[in-house]
């Protein structure tokens, strides 16, 4: 599998990363190297082997339905650039 410049451009948009068009070709090469390296795993025969989700025999940890967190709006908003009346504010997004 090889990435072309257009695919890299699309991925960059989806990740909201600004990439100048002049960098797309170089980035595609770098990404292709990484993908090629990972694709070596394809050489292993995994016929009949169940996909593994964890190296340890663990099951999903569950918690009880109790309110144990929250009620600290000042901490939640501590890093917000322009909070107002307890809200985050962002440039207008409206359909």
């Amino acid at each position: 599998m090889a990435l072309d410049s257009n695919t890299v451009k699309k991925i960059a948009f989806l990740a909201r990363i600004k990439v100048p068009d002049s960098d797309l070709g170089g980035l595609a090469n770098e990404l292709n190297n990484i993908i090629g390296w990972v694709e070596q795993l394809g050489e292993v025969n995994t016929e009949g082997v169940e996909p593994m989700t964890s190296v340890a025999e663990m099951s999903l940890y569950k918690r009880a339905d109790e309110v144990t967190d929250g009620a600290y709006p000042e901490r939640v908003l501590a890093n917000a650039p322009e909070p107002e009346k307890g809200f985050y504010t962002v440039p207008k997004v409206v359909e």
Partner: protein
Amino acid sequence: MTYLIQGDRGDWEVVIGLEIHGQVVSKAKLFSGAATAFGADPNCQVSLVDAAMPGMLPVINEHCVEQAVRTGLGLKAEINLFSVFERKNYFYADLPQGYQISQYQHPIVGEGTVVLDMPDGSTREIGIERLHMEQDAGKSLHDQDPRRSFIDLNRTGVCLMEIVTKPDIRSPEEAGLFLRKLRSIMRYLGTCDGNMEEGSMRCDINVSVRSVGETELRTRAEVKNLNSVRFVMQAIEYEASRQVEAHDAGEEVVQETRLFDSARGTTRPMRAKEFAHDYRYFPDPDLLPLQLDQAFVDRIKAALPELPDDKKARFIREFGLSPYDAGVLVASRRVAEYFEAVAEGRDPKTAANWVITNLFGALNAKGLDISESPVSAAALGKLIDLIGKGTLSGRMAKEVFDAMLESGQDPEAIVAERGLEQISDSGAIEGIVDGLIADNPTQVEQYRAGNQKVIGWFVGQIMKATQGKANPQMVNKLLREKLGE
């Protein structure tokens, strides 16, 4: 009652599938310990997990899992003992993680069925495709400031169940019936309060049309975020006729997401950022697969309440109610409980009549819920007993019932206070009848000459003399006997 749309060259039918988002009833959120209650001050029910601060990890709320399984069982659906949480990636200001934790390839609940009670008493089955768990997003307010949107994350991370139907629905009415039935089931189960105004239940619709007789599905359009049953029905009606017109005009119906304009009752396409909708689902590396054991599912199943369909069948079987009346009474668990308390030890049909005709009529007029009824089930039961004993005529009972609605008093107290007891003493009535016959020979002659209607005049006179308290059956019987002599 097939729903057909007339086109230029024949009739079209509409094919509808629904996606319903129901907020799970729980104290805390799906993956954090923050509270879920509606109406708190902004950002007061947000944990650092919900705000997606670096290094925070999700831990699943076991009760939410139980609620999803319970709902699945209520939909007579298959429960998947193995399910997987995946990340659905997109950017929006009210989604701090940059992805929604959802289920995609392996949902917790598979195929099921909901039975609709049609107005003509028949039933119709609508297939459920799946139910999966996911996080709700936050809330954006766009009307607070000319250049900014305000974001409240209180709802962020609350557990949602997304329920997807098969494309089995064929009319706006069926869609409305389905939503009401689903809401009723979830309320019986206590898994979602189904309050569409507060947004705890929301609906997306998928609509396409096809010529009657066609078996393939045509291209569908999706209308998102409808927040009332009426809007769902309106949006379907509009979409269906819009698509028929397009097909007739030889235009293409495109697969797209549309928005409903509730002021106009129309839909319009969302601005085209469709290409951005590439969710790139992948299993969430922070969460192991959700594995349930059958014993857990069986325990939930054993503790399920009697659901509306079973209750309806029992009301028909045990109480001899019509399917329609039974359906009305079981639509809400509270109403069903109220009715059963009234019917206990009494004639169930009489009880059903009083609850459906008189009580519902009065509650609707006052805009009250059954739980706010000024007349308790015990008090309504006593009123029915007073009719049964002959203390009250039907007409007097209505009067007492109105007084009960106003004051919340016991019927016996009202009867005593107003001196409303019916006169069922045949001696007393006989005396009045005899007096009337003696004083009004003209009317007696008219009756005996064959004018049956005059009897109404006599009844009126007796009611006047007794302030309406004479037992009407007894009055009629005595009059006919005496006048016939």
